[in-house]
């Protein structure tokens, strides 16, 4: 397809501000007369708070809040699911702490130093309770319970054996399926808690306004959900709450919710009656959120001719101290599993368990990297045990065009209409030299190379033909200015991946306006319609979908006004761009001589008092197409030290029409680094006695890959499949989360190919590799 701006590499709209250090992030916001806040965080994993004495802190001139001084409101910070499916267990400040590092009081003062010293002067009396730190132990009857009751929507719900929520799904008759299988392969996988490690720590600035309302600047993926939840907690009319849209210094899911520090800061500002700024230290931030871990038991039945006939997956998720979004997580995990291969008859049992640890929250992939690691490792295990070629085995069973895709658990599904899986596997195999791949037995010597493949996907948004458990729609406002330039007001947060540019491009493409004449306005909740969240890889597919929907209406309006001026029928008019004159014209179809520029139309509309050419509307996508990926990774294992290098990686993506090819590549390579981190380096562990984080909150002992751990530039190849998604804006789907999902499995499969050792949990560290090598090549880990 021939596009004017879609698919072209153009400079980011926020690029200049960002390279000059002038792009404001929440942590850069300064309001006159603001106080600085710090939180007091628990040293205990589980304890009742008997008394908090703030008198000394207050005598130092600090403003303090404690659990008794904040609204007693039970909430869930993530409000993406419909209210009846939202489990609530959290308070603004708790009377019982449930993990080390949970905020229990907060202090604001004129300087951060003073606030910090005042915080240290607060005295807390605890009644320390036994803590529960292992998810399996947590479910035993004798285990201490974290909660007696929580809320499901507005309903009270008893919590038994620390089970936060469950999801059991059976499709067909798995027992009969297994009975018909020639081989049954069963394994256990274990994926750790890891820290998001977004570069900007969570921040909030809250300014009380003269009208009794508040203005909030914060790190979030959703300004509208922040506003609505603050309205509920503080019983403020939404018209008096304004949340500003800002750039965010990375997120990866860590701000999918209204972060728990936001209402704390608001409560402080309301009490102090002046603006308050609360910036998390890195150690606060590490104690605030981790990626959901998962223990996965997977059993798959196959026939001799490599056809899958049944599957059974049991998932146990240690969600930590609060439910941020574990019920939808389990649903999504069932969906990622259901949509990878045609299991025929299958079962999914998911259980989320409370423990006295940092709460788990969404992180890029939302359960998909965990499920993908299990399934894509398992596909290799089966291929190996049954003598199938791993690629052919996948191609024989994958879920592709015409099949049903579960975009967000069992209630959000649509039929797949575009799919690049076959193309990507063929191209990847060719590039990596799959046919020359040797088995690990053929490899000797200190350094051994191996090649691994894994494939995956993510949904593009959470839309579907009918509304499910998840809210999904977006909004946009588009306005043609009187000189022919265009303003776009979008509530969709750009987490850095280029969603903003994509929105501009889609509008520019439809209205035939050059990219540099379309600008993204600085907006907030007051000036935009609702958008649910930049999550679920929905920025381009849903966010740009809404922008396209509105742009089409703007076009209609433009043509209508032009038809009055040109005295023609609007249906006979069309838009086009005149590169020589650098302007967008409306002309009579097949008779370009009769034309007028859109700037002139807008200007005349003003002069004739017809009004501004602007449209504001919302739009829901009615599909959730999967964006597919495949990873071919080469590793080199030093069998003497266990150190692994990645000499080469081939990253393949089917994201429909690539709207921002450079950003798409950036997403894939960025995800490779996070995937390698997940596979080889990262794990945020707790001391099993005290519940404290082993890293103590410092990134010194929470390593992520640096520039030196990545393959060299020329050794990373990126390939885009040639697909067109009929339901997407100009054929586009998402990419964000998909890009990560199969990295870790491809890595583990490559290690197996290099040294013949299968690792079932990550991170696959040099220590574990060496230990396994010592134990003999057949050891399973």
């Amino acid at each position, binding site marked *: 397809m021939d596009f004017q701006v879609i698919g072209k590499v153009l400079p980011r709209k926020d690029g200049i501000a960002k*390279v000059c*250090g002038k792009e404001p992030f929440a942590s850069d916001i300064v309001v006159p007369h603001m106080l600085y806040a710090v939180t007091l965080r628990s040293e205990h994993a589980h304890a009742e708070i008997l008394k908090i004495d703030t008198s000394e802190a207050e005598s130092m001139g600090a403003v303090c809040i404690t659990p008794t001084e904040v609204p007693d409101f039970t909430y869930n910070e993530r409000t993406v699911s419909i209210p009846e499916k939202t489990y609530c267990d959290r308070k603004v400040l708790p009377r019982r702490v449930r993990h080390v590092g949970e905020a229990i009081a907060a202090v604001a003062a004129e300087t951060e130093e003073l606030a910090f010293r005042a915080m240290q002067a607060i005295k807390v009396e605890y009644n320390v309770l036994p803590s529960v730190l292992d998810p399996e132990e947590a479910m035993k009857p004798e285990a201490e319970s974290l909660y007696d009751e929580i809320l499901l929507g507005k309903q009270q719900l008893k919590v038994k054996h620390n089970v936060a929520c469950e999801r059991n799904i059976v499709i067909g008759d798995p027992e009969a399926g297994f009975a018909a299988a020639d081989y049954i392969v069963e394994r256990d996988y274990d994926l750790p808690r890891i820290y998001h490690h977004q570069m900007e720590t969570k921040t909030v600035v809250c300014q009380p306004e003269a009208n009794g309302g508040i203005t909030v600047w914060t790190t979030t993926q959703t300004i509208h959900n922040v506003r609505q939840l603050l309205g509920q907690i503080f019983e403020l009319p939404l018209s008096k709450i304004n949340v500003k849209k800002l750039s965010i210094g990375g997120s990866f899911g860590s701000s999918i919710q209204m972060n728990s520090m936001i209402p704390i800061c608001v409560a402080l500002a309301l009490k102090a009656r002046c603006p308050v700024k609360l910036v998390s*230290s890195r150690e606060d931030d590490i104690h605030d959120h981790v990626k959901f871990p998962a223990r996965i038991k997977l059993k798959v039945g196959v026939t001799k001719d490599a056809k899958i006939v049944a599957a059974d997956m049991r998932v146990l998720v240690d969600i930590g101290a609060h439910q941020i979004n574990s019920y939808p997580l389990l649903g999504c995990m069932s969906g990622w599993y259901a949509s990878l291969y045609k299991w025929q008859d299958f079962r999914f049992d998911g259980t989320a368990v409370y423990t006295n640890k940092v709460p788990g929250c969404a992180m890029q992939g939302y359960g998909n990297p965990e499920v993908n690691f299990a399934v894509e490792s398992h596909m290799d295990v089966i291929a190996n045990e049954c003598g199938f070629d791993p690629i052919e085995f996948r191609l024989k069973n994958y879920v592709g065009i015409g099949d049903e895709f579960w975009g967000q658990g069992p209630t959000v599904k649509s039929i797949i209409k575009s799919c690049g899986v076959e193309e990507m596997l063929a191209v990847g195999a060719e590039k990596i030299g799959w046919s020359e791949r040797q088995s690990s037995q053929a490899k000797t010597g200190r350094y051994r190379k191996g090649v691994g493949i894994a494939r995956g996907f993510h949904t593009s948004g959470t839309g579907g033909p009918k509304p499910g458990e998840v809210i999904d729609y977006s909004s946009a406002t588009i306005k043609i200015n009187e000189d022919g330039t265009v303003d776009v007001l979008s509530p969709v947060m750009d987490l850095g991946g280029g969603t903003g540019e994509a929105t501009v491009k889609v509008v520019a493409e439809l209205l035939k306006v050059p990219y540099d004449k379309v600008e993204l306005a600085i907006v907030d909740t007051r000036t935009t319609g609702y958008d649910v969240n930049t999550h679920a890889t929905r920025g381009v597919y849903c966010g740009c979908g809404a922008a396209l929907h509105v742009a089409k209406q703007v076009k209609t309006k433009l043509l209508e006004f032009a038809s009055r001026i040109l005295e023609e029928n609007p249906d006979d008019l069309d838009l086009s761009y005149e590169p020589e004159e650098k302007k967008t014209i409306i002309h009579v179809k097949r008779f370009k001589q009769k034309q007028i520029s859109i700037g002139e139309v807008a200007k005349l509309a003003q002069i004739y008092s017809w009004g501004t050419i602007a449209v504001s509307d919302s739009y829901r996508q009615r599909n959730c197409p999967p964006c597919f990926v495949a990873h071919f990774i080469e590793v080199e294992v030093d069998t003497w030290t266990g150190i692994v290098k990645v000499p080469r990686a081939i990253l393949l993506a089917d994201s429909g029409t690539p709207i921002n090819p450079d950003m798409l590549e950036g997403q894939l390579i960025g995800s490779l680094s996070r995937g390698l981190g997940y596979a080889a380096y990262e794990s945020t562990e707790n001391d099993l006695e005290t519940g404290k984080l082993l890293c103590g909150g410092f990134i010194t002992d929470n390593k992520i890959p640096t520039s030196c751990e990545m393959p060299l530039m020329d050794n990373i190849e990126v390939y885009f499949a040639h697909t067109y998604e009929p339901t997407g804006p100009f054929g586009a789907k998402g990419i964000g989360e998909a890009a990560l999902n199969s990295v870790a499995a491809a890595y583990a499969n490559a290690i197996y190919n290099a040294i013949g050792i299968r690792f079932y949990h990550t991170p696959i560290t040099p220590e574990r590799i060496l230990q396994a090598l010592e134990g003999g090549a057949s050891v399973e880990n």
Partner: protein
Amino acid sequence: MEKRLIKVTINGKLRELFVKPNDLLLNVLRNDLNLMGTKYGCGIGECGACTVLLDGQTALACLILAVTVDGQEITTIEGMGDPAQLHPLQESFIEHGAVQCGFCTPGMLLAGEALLKENPNPNEEEIREYLRGNLCRCTGYAAIVKAIKSEAKCQSADPGTLSE
């Protein structure tokens, strides 16, 4: 704690500042001088978000007491270029898609600039080594390395062979 007077040249301008002994350079730049391009990422020297140039060499503002830089020269990202007149390396970052969320970007740019001053034509390994204290969680580093490499090429190529 008594405040002291220090004289520092910041982005080419001589400044007289009163600072407490425990004031970190990072907070003086951000809070007192409103130079928000220098970021807090970890506070313990591990991430490079707070990178500045101290007498032309990279240094971490989160681990420097402001009192100790009396008489020295500091360049922050705001002194590297401005929107009306970007530094070529800043242009290269935009051109190569080296900016995603942008939070690591100021530190990366200053490190890149210091590297090119020291070694006008670094190879890829040298660039990666030099950047290993600047963490980026978004990009996977490739675009950043590419942006620096391409700028190095431009600087070191003679005008006739720019087409390379």
